[in-house]
C-alpha cells in the first residue's frame, strides 16, 4: 500500500516520459519485493508488540502522576525510537558518504560510520529533548504557537552561525525523525496525556509533540556541525 503509488509514478515516468525500459528489472523488482516484505514485517511486529505496550505505558504514567518519571520516560522514548529509525539510518549513511566525498571527513569506512552514528545520536538527543518540552507543555497547558515561534527563532539564529554544508542535512533531519515508528507512538502519548489531564483538550493540546520533534533536530544538528568542524 505504501509503495504502490510510488511504483506507478516511477513506471509511468520511465515508460511514458523517458521512453526507456527499466534497467536491471529483476534486481529492481527483487529489491522492491524485499522492501515491501520488510516494511510489512516491521509494521506487523510494531503493532503486535511495541505499539500496545508503548500506549498502555503512556496511560499508566499519566495515572501514576509523577512528572519526573513521565519526563524521563518521554526522553528515553524519543531517543530510543529515533536511534532505531530506518529512514534516519538511511539518510545518515547518505550524509556520511557525501561528507566523505566533499572532504569534510576521511573517506575510510570507519570515520564515515562514526560520522553517521554521531549524526544519529545528535538527532535522537534532539527528539528526546523535544518530547520532554512537549510533555511539559501539555501538562502545563502552554499555547503551542508561542513555543513554536521561539523554536523558529532558535533555528534562524543557529543557521546564521552554522557552516553552509550542514544546513541542508540539518533541515532535512527535522523531517526524517518522525516516521512510521515514532508517529503513532508519540501521537498516542500526547493524546493520551491530554485525555487524562483535566482541563486539556485532546485536539488543541494533544497534538504538537511531533512538531517539536521536527524542530529541535534542526538546531541540534547545526550545533553538531559547528562543533565537528
Amino acid at each position, binding site marked *: 500500500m505504501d509503495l504502490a503509488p*510510488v511504483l506507478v509514478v516511477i513506471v509511468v515516468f520511465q515508460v511514458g516520459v523517458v521512453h526507456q525500459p527499466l534497467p536491471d528489472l529483476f534486481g529492481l523488482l527483487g529489491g522492491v519485493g524485499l522492501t515491501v516484505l520488510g516494511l510489512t514485517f516491521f509494521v506487523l511486529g510494531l503493532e503486535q508488540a*511495541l505499539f500496545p505496550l508503548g500506549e498502555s505505558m503512556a496511560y499508566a504514567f499519566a495515572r*501514576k502522576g509523577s512528572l519526573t518519571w513521565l519526563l524521563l520516560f518521554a526522553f528515553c522514548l524519543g531517543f530510543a525510537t529515533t536511534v532505531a529509525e530506518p529512514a534516519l539510518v538511511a539518510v545518515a549513511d547518505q550524509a556520511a558518504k557525501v561528507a566523505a566525498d566533499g572532504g569534510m571527513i576521511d573517506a575510510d569506512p570507519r570515520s564515515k560510520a562514526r560520522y553517521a552514528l554521531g549524526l544519529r545520536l545528535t538527532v535522537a538527543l534532539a527528539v528526546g529533548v523535544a518530547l520532554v518540552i512537549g510533555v511539559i507543555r501539555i501538562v502545563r497547558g502552554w499555547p503551542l504557537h508561542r513555543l513554536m515561534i521561539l523554536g523558529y527563532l532558535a533555528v534562524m539564529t543557529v543557521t546564521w552561525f552554522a557552516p553552509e554544508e550542514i544546513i541542508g542535512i540539518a533541515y532535512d533531519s527535522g523531517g526524517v525523525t518522525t516516521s512510521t515508528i515514532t508517529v503513532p507512538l508519540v501521537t498516542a502519548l500526547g493524546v493520551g496525556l491530554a485525555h487524562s489531564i483535566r482541563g486539556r483538550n485532546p485536539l488543541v493540546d494533544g497534538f504538537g509533540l511531533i512538531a517539536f520533534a521536527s524542530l529541535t533536530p534542526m538546531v541540534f544538528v547545526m550545533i553538531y556541525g559547528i562543533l565537528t568542524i
Partner: protein
Amino acid sequence: MNLWGDLVGAVRDVLPIAATILLFQVAVIRRPLPHPGRLLRGLVLVIAGMALFLRGLELALFPVGELMAAQLTGPRFIPAGARPWDYHWVYLFAFSLGFATTLAEPALIAVALKAREISGGAIHDWGLRLAVSLGVALGLTLGVYRIVTGTGLAVFIVGGYVLVLLQTALAPRMIVGLAYDSGGVTTSTVTVPLVTALGLGLARSVPGRDVLVDGFGLIAFASLFPIMTVLGYAQLVEIFARFRGE
C-alpha cells in the same frame, strides 16, 4: 554488507526501544509484562523486517531514485545552457512523487483518523490527507526549483516560517497543533530515501551545484509546506462554514 550484516545491525537498532520500555515497565510501573510471547514474536518481526527493508532499499529504491533524477536531468531532456523552465519534467516528477508517497503514508492515515475521531468529524480525514499531500507535492516542486536555480536554502525556509506564523495568527486555534504535526508526519520510511536520492542526483547533474550544499534540503520543504496547506485547509473549512451559516 550482506543480509547477515543488516540483521546484526537491525538487532542493535531495535534494542534501545525494547530496553527503554522494559526498564520502565519493571522499575517504575512494576507490573509484569502483558503477553510476553506475543511481544517476543513482534520483536523478531521488527528485527527481520528492518534487515529486509534496508537491504531492499540499497538494492532498488536508492538506485532508481538517482537513476530517474539522472535521466530526467540528462542531455536528452536538458539541452546545454538550459533555463530553469527547461526542467519542467523534473518539477512534474517531484510533484507526482510527493503527492503519491504522502497519500499512501500509513503514519499520516493514522493521525488523520485520530484527528477525525477527536474532532467529532469536524476535521475530515480525507480532506486532511489531501491537504498534506498537496503540501508535500508543492514543497518538493519548489525544493527542486531551488536546486536548479541554486538559491540558498535558508532564504526559502525563513520565508516559509514567516508565512506559517502569519497563517497561525489567522487560523482557528484547534487546527494549529495538528497542522504543525502534519509537517513531521509527511515523510515516511519510503519517501525520505527516494526524495533524498532525487535531491542528491539532481545536485550532481545540474552544473555548478555542490552536492553537500544543494543536495539536501528537499525533506525540509516537504515538512514545511504541509503546515501551510493544512492551516489553509482549516481556514477554507471555516470560511465555508460561516458562508453556509448566514
